[in-house]
């Protein structure tokens, strides 16, 4: 049984927005009006926020547990205030029931709330359909082939038709791989200046167009992951006008950075899909502000230091983000989103839950609520030890952040981050 807690002088974010400073009492995991003999935590000026929902999570165990483990991932989620996640395995395609059960068992011990995507094709190879009906009966909330998009359009059509029997959403990373080739950065001014091979925005927009055409024709709900281009959002707006059921997300780093940062030649900025232009980044924020985009994805991709300490072109793409996501996004969210912090929380709680077709968890009196304590006044620079596991591959390592998750009410008890 957990202790009774009182967070003194905090602002609580509910469905009505960020409230006035108050005392926030917790008893047995429930937010209660008051409780006797509570341990008092002085937290004036801090915010109590609902637990976040992570999109784009793959801890790579057991296939690459030399890089990262489930335990590392659970700890990273806790530090960042994430209490639920959509697990979409790239390293170990969930293409049959035993793999799904193994993941459900492994993640079920964490105290966190995990949901899973089943594979569309066996081994994400885009050649043979996975047993999607069985995976749906096993509890997946949607289907996806990780970062692989089947290049054979007939196969994609069959996959969407088959998935439609389940009523679940299909998730795609819209990238036409034949247009990527050996490209590693956005094709544009900075790629030319640095002599790097580029990936044109067309590699994304062509794939978005194909998926939307098929989804509209077959009347199948789809989700497009980690969009990077302004034009992709235009295609989605037009498709919605035609009645296509499409949702989409943008990853944290595509909202925070653009390709001008490539001049630093920091391999931590090597991401796939690549960072696009400043104009694209502005358009992505606009898409969030006006509701074209439903959620912000973490795209949490651990990479070993030795795979980043090489030439940019030879480095492994990817960045971790769970531990710092909210703090990193907050200043830009206040600048770009009309509802500021409230809109940002919606994009990290309700939006992802809606995409996964699971209930979202707003903070409500007398209900058991996962929550976190966030202090917006803390200025800090994330160091290596602030990240779980042996990786700390993020472009924001050592960079100033404003605001910090101080602790979380996790698995029935309160845990501080420091």
């Amino acid at each position, binding site marked *: 049984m957990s202790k009774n807690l009182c967070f003194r002088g905090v602002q609580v974010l509910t469905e009505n927005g960020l409230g006035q400073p108050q005392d926030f009492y917790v008893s047995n995991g429930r937010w209660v009006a008051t409780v006797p003999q509570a341990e008092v935590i002085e937290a004036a000026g801090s915010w109590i926020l609902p637990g976040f929902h992570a999109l784009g999570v793959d801890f790579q165990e057991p296939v690459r547990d030399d890089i990262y483990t489930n335990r590392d991932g659970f700890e990273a989620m806790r530090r960042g205030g994430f209490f639920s996640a959509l697990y979409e395995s790239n390293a170990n395609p969930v293409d049959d029931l035993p793999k799904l059960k193994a993941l459900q068992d492994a993640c079920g011990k964490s105290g966190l709330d995990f949901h899973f995507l089943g594979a569309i094709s066996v081994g994400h190879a885009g050649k*043979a*359909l996975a047993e999607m*009906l069985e995976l749906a009966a096993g509890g997946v909330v949607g289907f996806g082939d990780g970062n692989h998009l089947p290049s054979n359009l007939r196969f994609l059509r069959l996959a969407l038709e088959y998935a439609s029997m389940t009523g679940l959403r299909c998730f795609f990373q819209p990238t036409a791989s034949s247009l990527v080739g050996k490209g590693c950065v956005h094709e544009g001014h900075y790629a030319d200046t640095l002599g790097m091979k580029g990936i044109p925005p067309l590699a994304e927009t062509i794939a978005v167009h194909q998926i939307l055409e098929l989804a509209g024709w077959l009347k199948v709900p789809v989700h497009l992951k980690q969009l990077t281009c302004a034009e992709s959002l235009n295609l989605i707006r037009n498709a919605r006008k035609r009645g296509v059921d499409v949702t989409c997300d943008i990853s944290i780093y595509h909202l925070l950075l653009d390709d001008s940062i490539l001049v630093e030649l920091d391999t931590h900025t090597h991401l796939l899909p690549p960072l696009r232009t400043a104009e694209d980044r502005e358009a992505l924020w606009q898409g969030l502000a006006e509701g074209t985009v439903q959620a912000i994805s973490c795209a949490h991709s651990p990479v070993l230091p030795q795979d980043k300490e090489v030439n940019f072109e030879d480095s492994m793409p990817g960045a971790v983000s769970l531990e710092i996501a909210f703090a990193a996004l907050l200043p830009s969210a206040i600048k770009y989103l009309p509802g500021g912090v409230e809109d940002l929380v919606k994009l990290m709680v309700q939006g992802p839950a809606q995409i996964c077709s699971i209930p979202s968890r707003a903070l409500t009196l007398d209900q058991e609520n996962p929550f976190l304590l966030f202090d917006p006044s803390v200025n800090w620079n994330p160091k290596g030890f602030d990240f779980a596991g042996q990786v700390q591959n993020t472009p924001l390592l050592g960079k100033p952040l404003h605001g910090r998750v101080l602790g979380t009410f996790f698995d029935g008890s309160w845990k501080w981050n420091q």
Partner: protein
Amino acid sequence: MLSLLYACKRNAKKIPTLREYRNFFGLTADALQHAKPEVLIMHPGPINRGVEIDSVVADGANSVILDQVTNGVAVRMAVMYLLSGGRVDE
């Protein structure tokens, strides 16, 4: 409740595996529990036993598959006869 169950041959291109086909589309004894006790079981043949339909169902008391197949031969013969110019009163 269902009064008639008409099984068809599977579309191999659209279903990933025989196992998944049987589990979700196959006419099994368990599936039959959801039909009326007097339900009629039909299938145009040939049967893939254990895939589209289990033997216990295909050969069970509710099955009219053998009658259907037998009558199907006579009906086809009659249609071909009429299409080739034959008359009903001959």
